[in-house]
C-alpha cells in the first residue's frame, strides 16, 4: 500500500488499488473531519465495505448531490476522477465561493469505488472485468452488470438474461448488494436532488430514459442543462461530447441507474461517459486522469449550480 502522510502527497495522476483508495479516504477524513466523513452504506458480495464520502457543513438530510464513479470496475479513469473531485471539493471549501456556498446549504456524497469487488478483481485477476463478482446459481459465469440491475424497466430490452454476458441483468432487480446499498441509502435519505453516475468511455452526457422511448417529463430542461454542462466541459480542452437521452443517444438499456433515480423523483439525473474517443478504451493513460477530471468537474459544477439555483 502506498502510505501517505497527507492527501497532498497522494499521486492523483496515477491509478491506485482499492486499499490505497480506502486508505486515502481515511486520511482525507482525518484531515478535514469538520467537512468530510465516511459512511459505510453496505458490503459487497465478497464482503468488502462500500464507502461513501459525505461533504457536509452541518444540518440533517440537507438537499444533496450524489456522485458515483466506477460501477463498471474496469473504467479506471472514473474512480481516479472521483478521487480528484473529492480532493477538489475538500480543497476548495472556504476558498472557492461557489463550492463554499453550495456546501453551506447542501451536502455532497461521492461514492468513489461503486463496485469494490470488481475493482479489486481488475487489479489482481482480470484488468477487463466489468461486472460484480456474485455467483450465479446454475452457471459457471460470474457477476452481474450493476448498471442493468436497477428496478427501472428491469428485464426489458437492452439487458441480457445470460449470466455469461457482460450486460447480464441479474436474477432480479437489486439482487446485487452494490446496487441495493445505494437504493437503500437514496430512499432513506429522501432529499437527493441531483444524481450523477460516471462511466467511461465515449464522451457522452446522458439523461433518462434508457429503457423507454417515452421522453422524461423534464426532458427539455435536462437537455438544455446538458448542453450547458458540455459547453463548460469543452471550454477547457475542446473535448467534444454528445448529449441526449440514453435511448436516443446510444441504445436501449433497461435496469439502468439514472432511470431508477429519475423515477424516484431525482430530477437532475445524469450519467457521464468520460474520455476517450477510441485509442485506449478502458486503458486510458494515467497522464490523462487530471485533464479528464478537470474538464468533467466543469460540467458537474454546472449541474450542481443549476440544482442549487432551481430548488424543487
Amino acid at each position, binding site marked *: 500500500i502506498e502510505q501517505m502522510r497527507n492527501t497532498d502527497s497522494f499521486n492523483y495522476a*496515477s491509478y*491506485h488499488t482499492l486499499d490505497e483508495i480506502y486508505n486515502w479516504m481515511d486520511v482525507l477524513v482525518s484531515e478535514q473531519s469538520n467537512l468530510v466523513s465516511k459512511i459505510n452504506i453496505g458490503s459487497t458480495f465478497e464482503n468488502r465495505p462500500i464507502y461513501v464520502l459525505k461533504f457536509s457543513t452541518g444540518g440533517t438530510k440537507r438537499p444533496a448531490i450524489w456522485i458515483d464513479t466506477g460501477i463498471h470496475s474496469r473504467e479506471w479513469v472514473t474512480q481516479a476522477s472521483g478521487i480528484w473531485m473529492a480532493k477538489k471539493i475538500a480543497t476548495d471549501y472556504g476558498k472557492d465561493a461557489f463550492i463554499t456556498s453550495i456546501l453551506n446549504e447542501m451536502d455532497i456524497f461521492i461514492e468513489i469505488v461503486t463496485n469494490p469487488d470488481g475493482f479489486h478483481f481488475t487489479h489482481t485477476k482480470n484488468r477487463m472485468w466489468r461486472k460484480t463478482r456474485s455467483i450465479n446459481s446454475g452457471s459457471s459465469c460470474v457477476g452481474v452488470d450493476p448498471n442493468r440491475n436497477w428496478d427501472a424497466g428491469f428485464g426489458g430490452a437492452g439487458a441480457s438474461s445470460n449470466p*455469461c454476458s457482460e450486460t447480464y441483468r441479474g436474477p432480479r432487480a437489486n439482487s446485487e448488494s452494490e446496487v441495493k446499498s445505494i437504493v437503500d441509502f437514496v430512499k432513506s435519505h429522501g432529499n437527493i436532488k441531483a444524481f450523477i453516475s460516471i462511466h467511461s468511455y*465515449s464522451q457522452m452526457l446522458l439523461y433518462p430514459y434508457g429503457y423507454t422511448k417515452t421522453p422524461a417529463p423534464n426532458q427539455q430542461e435536462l437537455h438544455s442543462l446538458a448542453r450547458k454542462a458540455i459547453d463548460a466541459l469543452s471550454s477547457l480542452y475542446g473535448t467534444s461530447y454528445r448529449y441526449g437521452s440514453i435511448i436516443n443517444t446510444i*441504445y436501449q438499456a433497461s435496469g439502468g441507474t439514472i432511470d431508477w433515480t429519475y423515477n424516484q423523483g431525482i430530477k437532475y439525473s445524469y450519467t457521464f461517459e468520460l474520455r476517450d474517443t*477510441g485509442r485506449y*478504451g478502458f*486503458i486510458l493513460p*494515467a497522464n490523462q486522469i487530471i485533464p479528464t477530471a478537470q474538464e468533467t468537474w466543469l460540467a458537474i459544477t454546472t449541474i450542481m449550480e443549476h440544482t442549487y439555483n432551481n430548488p424543487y
Partner: protein
Amino acid sequence: QKIFVGDQVLRIVTKDMEQVTLLKDLEELENLELDFWKGPTHPDFPTDVHVPFASLQAVKVFLESNNIQYSIMIEDLQSVVEEEKIQIIRSRS
C-alpha cells in the same frame, strides 16, 4: 491472472443498419468470446470490440466478407496493460 497476449481491440465502422444487424449477430456468437466495449447501435457510431487472439481470424474474415470496415484500435491488448502496470509501479516508487 488473465492475460491478453495477441488480443486486439477493433474499431468497426458500419455504413448502414444492415451491417449493424450483422454485428449484432456476431455479438450473439458466444464461442468467439467477444467483449463489445462499445456495442453496435447505429451507422453514425463506431463499434469497439475486444477480440481474443483465438477468434481474430474468424472475426476479420467475417468483417471482410461482409464489406464491413474496421481498423485496429489496440494492436496487442496485453502490451497496453503491461505499460499501464509499469506506469503504476513507477509512480509508486
